[in-house]
């Protein structure tokens, strides 16, 4: 199964304070362990919400609100995607992460088979094609 590991924003990430060398080194070591264990599928940090926007939907109407979103209690600062055998395995790995004061959420990702018969062969084929093409583009973007 895949899980998304969501790192919550705090005051320093939201004000754009960059991590110091100690944290970067520790996080680098942790990432290295994840890669060596074959768990790590992706990992990214997000710029503060002040550089972002929100879009609200109402019928055909769209309302755009520029960041920061100070009223939002739970903003995201970054995430990993991990390939694990169980939620327990994900939790055990996360406990080893070099965080201090941070809160991190683990959420299982929907896989095609989770949808059961609603996922027809046609839809499955479409889904697989989309993913294959997105992955190719993603690999090219990393280079």
């Amino acid at each position: 199964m895949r899980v998304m590991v969501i790192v919550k924003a705090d005051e320093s990430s939201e004000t754009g304070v960059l991590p110091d060398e100690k944290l970067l080194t520790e996080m680098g070591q942790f990432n290295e362990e994840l890669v060596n264990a074959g768990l790590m599928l992706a990992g990214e940090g997000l710029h503060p919400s002040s550089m972002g926007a929100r879009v609200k939907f109402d019928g055909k109407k769209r309302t755009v609100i520029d960041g920061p979103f100070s009223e939002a209690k739970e903003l995201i600062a970054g995430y990993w995607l991990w390939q694990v055998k169980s939620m327990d395995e994900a939790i055990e790995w996360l406990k080893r992460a070099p965080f201090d004061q941070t809160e991190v959420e683990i959420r299982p990702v929907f896989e095609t088979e989770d949808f059961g018969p609603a996922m027809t062969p046609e839809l499955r084929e479409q889904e697989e094609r989309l993913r294959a093409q997105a992955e190719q583009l993603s690999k090219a973007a990393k280079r």
Partner: protein
Amino acid sequence: MRFMLLMIPAGYEDAPPGAMPDAKAVAAMMKYNESLQRAGVLLALDGLHPPSMGARVSFAGGKPKVTDGPFSEAKEVVGGYWLIQVKSKEEAVEWAKRCPGSENEVIEVRQVQELADFPPDVQEAAAGFSELQARSGTGTHS
């Protein structure tokens, strides 16, 4: 530039384990996904099971403490995301606006940090991260 479009559906914070999106909504969303892919901007996309199937780990004082979902204090949670590659924040917002979202949904548009966004000393300390990312697999969906 890469952006994350975070789908935040109101009420998803209380969804029971195994909750599934409505088939009609999925069909509309697949059309939207196709349009992102045809435009060559789609890098990744996923849906997340409800928080009732997840867990949180807090690190007060560096000591991990695990709480199983659902999370009663959560007012809004992520239901899924798209990762897109575009030329500007405006273009990312335009794509978010084209999503067949419903009244209870909000999309948050957030720029992804690239190594080049950091000052030289941080880039140096983080050296190897790009290499780690390149070594990280993408797409063993099982």
